[in-house]
């Protein structure tokens, strides 16, 4: 599965908690959150656009950085 990298403007545990709750509702997704560096990695076969829209639900600024 491709690993997508996103920059998410998270500033606190509340933000990263919200992101992790949002992502854990998706199926077939593995993710890692790096709060200090404001990065989120998602391993998934889903379209990057869909993942981007899902992340945006938390109300933070999100940008797609590409796959690894």
């Amino acid at each position, binding site marked *: 599965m491709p690993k997508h990298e996103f920059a998410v403007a998270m500033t606190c545990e*509340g933000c990263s908690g*919200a992101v992790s709750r949002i992502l854990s509702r998706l199926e077939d997704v593995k993710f890692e959150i790096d709060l200090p560096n404001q990065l989120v990695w998602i391993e998934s076969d889903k379209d990057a656009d869909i993942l981007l829209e899902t992340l945006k*639900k938390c109300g933070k600024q999100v940008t797609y950085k590409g796959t690894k």
Partner: protein
Amino acid sequence: VCEVTLGVGGMTCGSCVQSIEQHIGSLPGVIHITVSLEQATATVIFNDSQQSAASLLEAIDDMGFESSLST
């Protein structure tokens, strides 16, 4: 016009409060929202033809925060 107070879990600071106020406050039919970090609540004044306690709960939940009807 209705007013409801919902429980909101998972907020840790002022920026969490702000993002909820901004997002929920911009939904159609939401007239006013006040979020309290200390009490972990959101008090929303809304137009009941466009929103309901249930739709507001869902919107907060959708943002990744735990929400509940607190009475």
